[in-house]
Structure formats: C-alpha cells, structure tokens
C-alpha cells in the first residue's frame, strides 16, 4: 500500500465509501427495525443473550473499526511486530472484560 500511497488519493476515498456504505446500511436496518419491517427472528431471537440484529451491528462495527485502524491510522502498513504490540492488549483485555462484566450483569439481573 505504501506504493499506492504515492500514486494519489484513491485509496482514501475507497475507504470513505466503504465506511459510508456500512453506516448507511446500519441506519437503514435501524429504521426498518423501528418501523417493524425486519423479519422477527432478527429482532427477537437471541444468541448469547443478544438479538441476531445486534450481532450483525457488532460485526459491521468491527469491519468499520478495522478499516479505520488499519488504513486511516496506517497500522496495517507498520512493522508486523508493532502492529501486534498495539492490537494484542486490546484483543485480550477487551473480550475478557466483556465476559466477566456481562456475565456478572446477567447474574445481577437474575438476582433482582
């Protein structure tokens, strides 16, 4: 990519359109949900305590985050060792935090 970097700005705009398209898609799903046009299993059936629609939103969010971090923040083009030094703490600590806090929250809900 560092070669492409010198050959213009098209890669910046490409990422912009991807981010915009994903956001527009998310907003569309959100509005369809409010208006009740989404299939029921997406809104009411759950997996790991979250609706399938929520899982879709999370995946789309992670894709957006990936583009921002790897391309806009240029982390995808840094040294591999540097890349992992930055990403590994988040990859380990955030899921761990989510796991302990959210399972605790479910317990708190059941105990109320």
């Amino acid at each position, binding site marked *: 990519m560092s070669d492409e970097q010198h050959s213009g700005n098209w890669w910046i705009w490409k990422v*912009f359109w991807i*981010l915009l398209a994903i956001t527009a898609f*998310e907003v569309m799903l959100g509005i369809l949900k409010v208006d009740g046009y989404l299939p029921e299993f997406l809104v009411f059936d759950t997996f790991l305590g979250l609706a399938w629609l929520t899982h879709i939103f999370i995946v789309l969010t992670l894709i957006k985050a990936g583009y*921002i971090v790897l391309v806009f923040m240029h982390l995808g083009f840094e040294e591999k060792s540097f890349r992992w030094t930055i990403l590994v703490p988040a990859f380990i600590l955030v899921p761990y935090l989510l796991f302990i*806090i959210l399972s605790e929250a479910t317990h708190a*809900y059941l105990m109320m």
Partner: protein
Amino acid sequence: MADSLIQNDMNAPAWKGGDVPYKASYGKMMMWFFLITDTLTFSAFLTGYGFSRFKFKDVWPVPEDVFTHFPFLHGDHPLLFVALMTFILIMSSVTMVLAVNYGHKMQKNKVIMWLSFTILGGVLFLSSQAWEWGHFIHGDSGAIELNNADVIHVVKDKEIYSIYDLMGADSHDGSHHAFGMADVKENFASDTELGLRLYDKTFLDHSTSIEYLDQNASKVLLGANLTSNEYGHVLFADYFFFITGFHGFHVFSGVVLLIILLINTIMGTYEKRGHYEMVEKIGLYWHFVDLVWVFVFTFFYLV
C-alpha cells in the same frame, strides 16, 4: 523521509540509544501507546454501560424512542441525526488522511486546506452534539416518576401523550414550571381517553390509571439530568452524559490540537523541520476519536 524522522544513529549499539524499535519514531509510538490506554478506558465505559443495560434490561429505554428529532424537522426521525453526526466525523477523518498524505509530499498549501476542513468537521460535530444534549436535557413529552423511582408515561391510544399537551403548556416558554403532580392528576382525570404505560411497557386503562397515580405517583419528570430521566432508567441518562461527554471532550481536545497544528503549518514550522510527522501524530489521535464514535454510535444508538 524516514531518515529525517529518526535522528538516532542506527549503527550505534543499543546502550547508546542506537536501536529504533519497530522502525517507528518515538513520538508516533508514544501516541499509539497512549491510544491503547484510551481504548481500554472507553472499553471500560461501554462495558459499564453494558452491565447496567443487561441488569435493567426490562426497563431500559429504547434508544430509537429517545433520539428521534432532527433540527428544523417535525415528527419522528429516529437515527437520522446521529447518522449525520457519524457522517460528519467520518468525513473529517477523510480530510485528516488527506492532510497527512499531502504532508508526506511536503505540499504545505494542501496540508493547510485539508487541516482547515478537518477543523470545520470537528466544530460541526461538537455543535451537533451540543444540540443533541440540549434536546435530551430539555426532554420531549415528560413522564411521571413513582415512589419506587420507576418512570411511567401518559398515553393516548397506546402512543405516548405529551404532558405539555395535557397541561396546555408550551414546552419552550417556561410555563411548564408552573404545574406539579397534583395539577397533572387533575387534568389526567378529566380526559377519559388517557391511560398509562408502565415501566415494563404494559398499559393501564383510564380508571385504573387514576387509582394507580394516587397510590404511586411522586413527581412529574420533564427532561433528563443526572438524577432523573423522563425517558426511563436514570442510569441511561448518566451513561449518556458521561460517555458522549467524554468522547465530546476528546473531540474538543482534538480540535484544539488541530488548530495549533494549523497555525504551525502556516508558520512553516514543519517545512523548516523537514517533515510533517506532527500532522501524522495528531492525525492518529483524530482517527481514534472517529473510531470511538463508531462504537458509541453502535452501542448507544443502534442496538
């Protein structure tokens, strides 16, 4: 360009400071390390939000019912305004990358132009957030708080009915300070089409409602603040102010940094220094602010 950034002698032994870890300059690496810690801070906030939402899931407000307004437009437009805010922030991220890119090419005027657009985006975002906060604090239809701190709403045909309409008050001229719970009960009793929507989203008919209000109602809620929230559970308002406020403060700091950066660029500081790495470092921070918003957008407004 890398040579001008890394002033260490690569051939010197490590004890003389010769090594350049990860081939990244000191400043850039430290910015990344700061961003790791900030990532964990925001993760903790959003996880905390998740805790309360999971714990109070039966009474948690539905975000699509809370953020439904758009400036100068009437009616309900859920998500549209935050979508606009997201667009503004993504756009300002793009102008930031463009500024960084022209910095690499040492094109001072283009850097100035794109930095200016980025600042404009940041200011637009902050203004939108101010509007959103103002609207959230002022409130929408009002609600009634019960003795046990549950929040319930007045409804007509199962749609939330504004307490301002019930009292014949204008929500913007200050006259809403002139009524209390007793006045609301009185007007409520005189309109037999009215009912109540309880915290768990079940409905009461008119006569049961009057009895219910007599037994349980404690005060009228108009708007939201840190101790009461007409949209539902008070923690929702607390997290809203805290998380979007902390993010907004990041945006504000970013705008200040960008303005300093712009002044330095215009003064030719980076031209003299021989590289525009400072644009890249502030750029990292700015993209991070965008990154956080992507998550806030999903977890606060979408799900």
